[in-house]
């Protein structure tokens, strides 16, 4: 339905009716962001990206690839200070800025809406004409600069830009550049523009590269891959299995494994160096000194895919322990003891310096087993840190279904099913790999605090805190933001507005009346929470309109769940 002409005119259309169209540079990028952020159709987004990649300068294109694959320059200023500068410019009290922010739900947009209008450009003078790469390279240059210099740069820039461009510029500063585009979509658009295979592009743009120091041609040159020892392979991701796998055919064609609740990781050993990548393509080698010994034990030209997770004596520990490690710049000895990290290897992508991703899984698995066994033979102590992720033997689907019921006892969240003949593909692909998670645990709770949401939930009360009963008291135990329909959110929003008891800043205390079934994936003891428990992935499973507040679950119920399902060790 969408042809070339419609594609062009969409780019000139400003769906939100702000700003005007300018050629090239930063305005071209901000109109791209506008379409990506507001369009409801993937074909439109793809067209907009293609159009961008065939129009923008090479330098800007490299930066767009960097930004949409999570490689943004470091924040040069925190949001509190940015907010202060805006408040100074607009001469409004801080509380009014905050009220505005809670209603808009996005700091970058709030500032863009509040700033005074851009002074008119004097006749005969052209627009600033600056480029995306100019601003981003300024961010890098000013990273260590004194605050007044940063302030001058940001305020000068604000005054050069239209409202729409200010929003995009602020987004670049504040981070969280989450607009409606996935890395996969960007890769597809690049593939169409450059005529290079999407999987090759995904590989080329992975790993360690600096947008400021590479040009477009080199970045997308398939011959450049081999020059970077640290370069990871794009991860192959599984889809969630909703039904029973009974129609998957013969179970012998499938490999079943436990599904671990850690961070997906790739361990690379090339030319005497070790690199550890997370699925978010963050280089994490220094965060896990436990793996350092692999630098001497693994043969060169080896790449393993597996799960980074806290474990002791081969027993997985709660995910929260891993979180205590990720955020730290330096790891203390105490942390190494309290949150020991291991690696469950489940795939081999490079063997003997050769990319073996097209070989069937069962062959890769055999090679992986060889590598792990010979590595462990070199150092038995290592067995506490690195292990093969075990496969599960079952002769029928029924047997596997029964075994799956024991997932939580294994410290896992369910099963992975992988077709033994499957190659290692790029990105999320349907068909060969499935994650088959356990049914979530559920508990009925009452909504007692509400706060306005962000993004498309701006100005709606959509962020809630829930409580269970403890005798006559209500004890909060979790927040949840997702799982309801827009209609339900609207209904609750109206209830919150009509039934607020008190206001604490942006938070409203709500009459305890609405009951929800909260679903979650895991439960662990927590000293930080009043209830003494922390939930994994809590969300609203359904609104229990049939239940009254005196019918909700109790703190005792939660503690029982913790006893039954909580991991045996909680790191205390």
């Amino acid at each position, binding site marked *: *339905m969408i042809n070339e*002409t*419609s594609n062009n*005119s*969409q780019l*000139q*259309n*400003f*769906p*939100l*009716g702000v700003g005007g169209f300018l050629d090239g540079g930063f305005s071209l990028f901000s109109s791209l962001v506008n379409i990506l*952020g*507001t*369009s*409801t159709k993937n074909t439109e987004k793809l067209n907009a990206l293609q159009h961008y990649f065939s129009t923008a300068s090479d330098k800007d294109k490299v930066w767009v690839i960097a930004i949409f694959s999570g490689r943004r320059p470091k924040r040069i200023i925190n949001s509190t200070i940015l907010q202060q500068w805006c408040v100074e410019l*607009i001469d*409004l*009290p801080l*509380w*009014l800025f905050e*009220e*505005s922010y809670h*209603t*808009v*739900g*996005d700091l970058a*947009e*709030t500032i863009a*809406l*509040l700033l005074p209008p851009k002074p008119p450009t004097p006749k005969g003078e052209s627009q600033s004409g600056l480029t995306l790469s100019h601003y981003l390279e300024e961010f890098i240059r000013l990273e260590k600069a004194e605050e007044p210099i940063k302030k001058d740069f940001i305020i000068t820039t604000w005054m050069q830009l239209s409202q729409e461009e200010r*929003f995009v510029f602020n987004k670049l500063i504040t981070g969280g550049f989450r607009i409606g585009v996935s890395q996969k979509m960007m890769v597809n658009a690049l593939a169409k523009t450059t005529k290079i295979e999407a999987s090759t592009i995904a590989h080329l743009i992975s790993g360690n590269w600096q947008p400021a120091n590479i040009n477009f041609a080199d970045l997308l040159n398939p011959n450049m891959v081999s020059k970077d020892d640290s370069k990871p392979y794009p991860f192959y991701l599984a889809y969630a299995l909703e039904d029973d796998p009974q129609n998957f055919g013969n179970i012998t064609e499938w490999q079943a494994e436990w599904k671990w609740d850690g961070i997906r990781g790739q361990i690379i050993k090339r030319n005497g160096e070790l690199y550890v990548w997370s699925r978010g393509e963050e280089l994490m080698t220094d965060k896990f000194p436990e793996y350092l010994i692999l630098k001497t034990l693994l043969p060169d030209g080896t790449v393993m895919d597996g799960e980074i997770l806290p474990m002791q004596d081969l027993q997985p520990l709660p995910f929260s322990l891993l979180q205590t490690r990720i955020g730290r710049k330096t790891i203390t000895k105490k942390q190494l003891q309290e949150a020991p990290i291991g690696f469950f290897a489940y795939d081999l992508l490079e063997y003997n310096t050769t990319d073996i991703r097209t070989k069937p899984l069962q062959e890769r698995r055999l090679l992986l087993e060889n590598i792990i066994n010979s590595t462990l033979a070199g150092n038995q102590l290592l067995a506490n840190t690195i292990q093969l992720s075990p496969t599960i033997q079952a002769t029928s689907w029924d047997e596997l279904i029964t075994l799956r019921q024991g997932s939580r006892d294994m410290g896992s969240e369910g099963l992975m099913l992988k077709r033994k003949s499957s190659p290692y593909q790029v990105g999320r692909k349907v068909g060969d790999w499935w994650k088959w998670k356990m049914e979530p645990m559920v508990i009925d709770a009452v909504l007692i605090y509400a706060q306005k949401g*962000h*993004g*498309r*939930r*701006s*100005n*709606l009360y959509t962020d809630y805190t829930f409580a269970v009963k403890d005798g006559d008291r209500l004890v909060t135990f979790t927040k949840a933001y997702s799982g309801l329909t*827009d209609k339900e959110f609207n209904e609750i929003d*109206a209830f919150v*507005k*009509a039934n607020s008891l008190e206001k604490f800043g942006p938070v409203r205390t709500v009459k305890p009346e609405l009951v929800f079934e909260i679903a979650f994936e895991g439960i662990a003891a927590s000293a930080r929470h009043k209830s003494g428990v922390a939930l994994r992935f809590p969300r609203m499973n359904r609104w229990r309109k049939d239940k009254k507040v005196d019918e909700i679950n109790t703190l005792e119920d939660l503690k029982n769940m913790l006893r039954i399902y909580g991991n045996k060790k909680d790191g205390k």
Partner: protein
Amino acid sequence: MDKVLDIKNSSVLENSPLGVGGVSAALLTYTDKGLYCQQGGFYIDPWGAVDKAIITHAHSDHARWGSNHYLCHHLTKPLLQLRLGNNNYQSTTWGEPVYINGVKISLHPAGHIIGSSQIRIEYNGEIWVVSGDYKTENDGLSGAFEAVKCHTFITESTFGLPIYKWQPQAIIYQQIQQWILENQANNTSSVLIAYSLGKAQRVIEAAATITNNIYVHGAIWNTHETLLNTGIHLPTVKKVTPETTKAELKNAVIIAPPSADGTPWMKKFQPYKVGVCSGWMQVRGNARRRNVDAGFSLSDHADWPGLLQAIKATQAERVLVTHGFQAVLSRYLTETGIEAYEINTPLMPPTPKGEEE
């Protein structure tokens, strides 16, 4: 009547002059049926059936069915007849005083929609003005907002946050026109969502300068006919009926009320794009939530600078803020030296759906 008790008991009201008897007797109080003038024995935009009702404008959250006597502007009367049927209506013109039980009442342009009026009441030298809904920009249809000097001003605050600053109508109209032209170039119809009384007439005017192929939803058609009969000049439009063919609708502009958005009624217009005309479109999240192709920040309410300008122009000693961001606006006014109070009316909560515009 739980909700009404809530109003009476709310701590906000205890601090405000409303509902507190005594001292230079308040001219207006909130009762279970809404804003009431005891001295005159009448209500303004009552929430239920009363004896005497003065109506600011014909939107359904202000004009309700069941009262014995209605007083409104001449241009509002036919709209009330359309929406509420035949009742005992008395209509007047702007600035023409009407006396009820010795209370002097006059209506003044509010600029919100056709016929919309502020209500000025005067008794023993005390003057109160109820703004109803208003906007300060002259839209060319609704009359120019008039600042009326008073002691107490009751103002709405639908868009009472500094993030709401409208661009001039001419610019928004251009954006709408450009969007329609682009859709036409792509052989796509343009469905514009606008409240049937007020916004729809403005959007029709905007569209009519570039096309004469404008279709409207039945609800907008009825309003259109009524306004034409009242003598208002409006561009020619066609009604979408079951007989309207797909060929006729090709590349057309279709104006529809929010209630029609996303319903099977719109199927016939394929292929089409949807543009929503509402002040709420100022914030991206609202536009994204509504899944619209385009959002145009066109409002029939005053923006933040408009509210402040209007309030100052009344020179009121005391401002009562209702209907929207009352807490924010009243606090801001207080901090800038204007005595202000927020009035919470749970029966009329702000609903950011464009319906109340």
